[in-house]
């Protein structure tokens, strides 16, 4: 072929030529010098940074017999054959077109044959991210322990598509984007070799447009050269990269800065009409603005040709535009840069951008010079205070509602609370039938509740999908007597739906009856009201007294329903009883117990019960009015985790504790802890 692209002609053939990746080349050279070559390498990095080149050089270096300081000689037959791509032992595979399991199997099968000419068989698998999952996995074993004469070099631009199992079996090298200066140096070297003169600014522009890819840079340079004239001119470089001249950018920024939108739009349209690249427009603007900022710090920092070409104009512009505005312009530009990638209307984006940049001006300039600090705060303040005020009002209103609501719920209970507001508050929602629920609570037992809970999942599975949906989320039985159950709902909405749906209630009752073999009534409560209902019930029916009056078995049953209910009764302090669940309650109990537990080993308990008075001074809890009871409670906690297991079948200690007035327990607990 008569003409070859620069990037092919100037493909590096030695590690020294691979510019911009000194760390990697040095590491590889050292490995070669000390003969510590790994069997698998993974080269990754953006396009045009030298991955494939490094792979080819490495393939040459390991096989070259005249290697010097880790560099291949490029003179011997092996080197020449590898450079020409004709050596059978260096196999370059395009993984993008050979991405199936079959191709990898083929590699695996052939890898076991020793190399024919060279010392090592080198497989260069390029674009390795395109391998299929099956292919990657087929490669794993071979990659981990290949025959001694095989080296794998994988190269990819998209490391995130390579499985971790592959990465962990290879030595990974991350190629970096090449710095503009390095690209410029390399182009200078090439051009000098080709005896072509150049404008410095042109090379710099090309290096910027290449964005870290050497191949991109050489492609562009190639095009600029194709414009002819054996001289790389800035004008040609501008035209090839689609970049804007410093002059145009200056005019544009001045127009936008002064709010001259019309002028800005005209410039955009003119530039697009001659085929400038909208993306490049934004990139150029960003570079230009960056240089404006740098110039302000130190004129020598602004290195781009925009600053150096016409220093006077640039210096003037630096004075004209203020920093804040530059920052905001950069923000707007970066936002647009992202969007530009997707669109088919880049021209409209640029128009919108221009208007935004130009109007940015009026808002900033209007507020800033007049009162830099206060101007922005001042208009914000009234709005803020207004918002705060309205929020405060809302909070007050809500608090009021809550208070009314709390008065309302227990109103119909036997507890003689004045409840004038109650009906109004309750009417809006579905009514909770407290009498029924209190009736359930009156005969509730722990056992029944456990029984119902055991049936609950089965019950749910018997319901239709829509019914199950209502009961599935946040609904659970919280109390149960032998022939009734109270179900609480986390979400008021669900509660309302369930309470209104008589069909569902009947269905649930029917299913429960089937499961439990006897009729069970179902009542619903919203969870937020449940603690209060329970608490009010307990307040209205002091458990201890009731139990003492009633017969022992009844008293066992009468103990407030569920563990948490008793629990809450025991730790009477109202704020503690939020709508937290039983677990939280027992946790609270649990925290109380350790304080008492240390002395309460088995023997200690026995000693306590026998000779309480002797040890009266030993610890505060023993000094308390009901020492035995408190210790037994602690013991029960230690044994069962939960505060109270109210059941006739429980051991004697439990009975003792149970008959202890729950109202007294907290005092004990407090004493014990305090």
């Amino acid at each position: 072929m008569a003409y070859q692209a620069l990037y092919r002609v100037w493909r590096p053939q030695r590690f020294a030529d691979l510019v911009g990746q000194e760390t990697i080349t040095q590491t590889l050279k050292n490995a070669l010098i000390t003969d510590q070559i790994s069997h698998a390498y993974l080269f990754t990095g953006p396009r045009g940074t030298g991955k494939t080149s490094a792979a080819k050089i490495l393939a040459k270096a390991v096989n070259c017999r005249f290697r010097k300081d880790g560099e291949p000689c490029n003179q011997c037959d092996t080197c020449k054959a590898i450079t020409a791509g004709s050596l059978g032992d260096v196999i370059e595979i395009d993984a993008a077109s050979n991405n199936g399991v079959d191709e990898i199997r083929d590699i695996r099968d052939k890898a076991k044959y020793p190399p024919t000419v060279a010392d090592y068989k080198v497989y260069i698998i390029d674009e390795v991210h395109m391998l299929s999952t099956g292919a990657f996995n087929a490669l794993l074993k071979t990659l981990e322990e290949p025959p001694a004469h095989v080296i794998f070099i994988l190269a990819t631009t998209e490391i995130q598509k390579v499985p971790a199992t592959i990465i962990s079996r290879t030595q990974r090298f991350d190629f970096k984007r090449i710095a503009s200066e390095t690209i410029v140096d390399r182009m200078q070297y090439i051009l000098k070799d080709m005896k072509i003169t150049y404008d410095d600014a042109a090379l710099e522009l090309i290096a910027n447009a290449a964005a870290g890819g050497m191949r991109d840079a050489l492609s562009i340079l190639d095009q600029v050269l194709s414009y002819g004239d054996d001289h790389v001119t800035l004008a040609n470089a501008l035209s090839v990269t689609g970049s804007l001249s410093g002059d145009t950018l200056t005019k544009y920024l001045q127009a936008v800065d002064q709010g001259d939108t019309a002028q800005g739009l005209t410039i955009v349209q003119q530039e697009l009409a001659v085929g400038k690249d909208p993306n490049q427009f934004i990139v150029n603007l960003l570079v230009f603005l960056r240089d404006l900022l740098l110039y302000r710090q130190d004129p020598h920092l602004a290195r781009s040709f925009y600053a150096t070409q016409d220093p006077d104009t640039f210096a003037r512009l630096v004075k004209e535009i203020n920093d804040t505005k530059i920052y905001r312009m950069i923000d707007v530009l970066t936002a647009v840069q992202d969007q530009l990638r997707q669109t088919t209307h880049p021209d409209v984006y640029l128009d919108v951008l221009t208007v935004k940049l130009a109007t940015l001006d009026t808002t900033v300039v209007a507020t800033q010079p007049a009162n830099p600090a206060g101007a922005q705060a001042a208009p914000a303040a009234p709005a803020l205070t207004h918002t705060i005020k309205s929020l405060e009002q809302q909070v007050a209103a809500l608090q009021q509602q809550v208070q009314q609501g709390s008065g309302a719920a227990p109103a119909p209970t036997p507890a003689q609370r004045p409840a004038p507001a109650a009906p109004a508050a309750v009417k809006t929602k579905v009514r909770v039938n407290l009498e029924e629920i209190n009736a359930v609570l009156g005969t509730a037992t722990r056992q029944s509740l456990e029984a119902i809970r055991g049936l609950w999942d089965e019950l749910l599975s018997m319901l239709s999908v829509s019914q199950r949906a209502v009961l599935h989320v946040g609904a659970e039985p919280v109390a149960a007597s032998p022939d009734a159950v109270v179900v609480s709902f986390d979400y008021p909405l669900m509660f309302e739906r369930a309470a209104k749906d008589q069909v569902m209630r009947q269905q649930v009752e029917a299913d429960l009856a089937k499961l439990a073999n006897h009729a069970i009534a179902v009542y619903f409560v919203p969870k937020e009201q449940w603690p209060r209902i329970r608490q009010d019930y307990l307040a209205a029916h002091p458990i201890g007294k009731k139990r003492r009056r009633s017969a022992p078995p009844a008293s066992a049953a009468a103990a407030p329903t569920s563990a948490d209910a008793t629990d809450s009764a025991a730790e009477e302090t109202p704020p503690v009883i939020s709508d937290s669940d039983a677990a939280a309650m027992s946790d609270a109990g649990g925290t109380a117990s350790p304080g008492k537990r240390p002395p309460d080993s088995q023997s200690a308990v026995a000693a306590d019960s026998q000779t309480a008075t002797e040890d009266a001074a030993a610890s505060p809890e023993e000094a308390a009015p009901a020492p035995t009871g408190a210790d037994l409670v602690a013991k029960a906690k230690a044994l069962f985790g939960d505060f109270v297991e109210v059941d006739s079948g429980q051991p004697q200690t439990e009975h003792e504790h149970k008959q202890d007035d729950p109202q007294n327990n907290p005092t004990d607990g407090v004493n014990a802890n305090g």
Partner: protein
Amino acid sequence: MTAETAWPITQLQPRLVNRFERLISRDQLAHAYLFSGTQESGTTALAQWVGLRLFCSNVHNGQPCGQCAQCKQILSGNHPDFLKIQPTGATIKVDDIRDLRQEMARTGLEQAKRIFEIDQADLLTPGAANSLLKFIEEPPGPVLIILVTEQKQRLLSTILSRVQVIDFPPAPAANIAAQLTDEGVAPELAPLFSALGASVPTARALAEDQALSPLLDALDQWLAALGRHDWQAFILVQTQIMPLVKERPLQTLFFDLTIIALQDILVAQYTPAAPSHFPQHQATLTAVASQWPPTTATLAAAQALAAQARLQGNVAFQGLFERLTAQILSSFS
């Protein structure tokens, strides 16, 4: 006819033709190019011209003759060494590229060099694009690969770095107007067509059936209502616009039209003298431009662009358009 005037592309893109003529005569042609620009700007025409210029057996003054056997074969699309790959369906698939690679491995039948033109390269599937990488970097034989695209930004950066990108300046409206007149389409549509980009084929097919004007009228009505700050515009989406844009290409086209119209309004607020893309609906656009506050015009254009991006992500047209309408209307308060 003389050779210089024979090829429309020499008038449309004289500088690019000169450049390629120089490259070919100096034998400096690279192996892979990307022609980036609208169909109207002459991308495929230039690719054809390059093919003619390379293969013509009777080049005169740097221009192919168009008469010889080679030229005739290319012009009729039958040259064995000038292959065109076009999308089959919505994409160009890996199999198409696999075939291409096999072709590339063969030497030319009648010529030393072979030319491969890949149209609408932005429609390459990721797999296809990746399997192209190695071949456009170092093709096995003497080949010239020309990728043609209207949406360069959609190509892989690894492809872009391997090719020489030629950005085509958009075709002047006058050229398009002449072309349209030739095809029996009203030349007043020329400015619009020059801005439509990828939707041009759809629009042209409509224009030939006289079906474009109802779309433009609906747009006109919608904009006029928006100009009056009239919430009726919201209803118009359902009643006037939706019946016209039942198919996907039409929806894309309508969005393109809307965006161009909003751009016109935006530009007209600052440079009233700027040429409009809708000569027939100029009055409405000018009126709207004067009725809207500048913030609305900016917002409308920006939101329309954002909505179009969503349309490409398969969000329903009606929802997007109604949202846009509501956004514009509520910006007045």
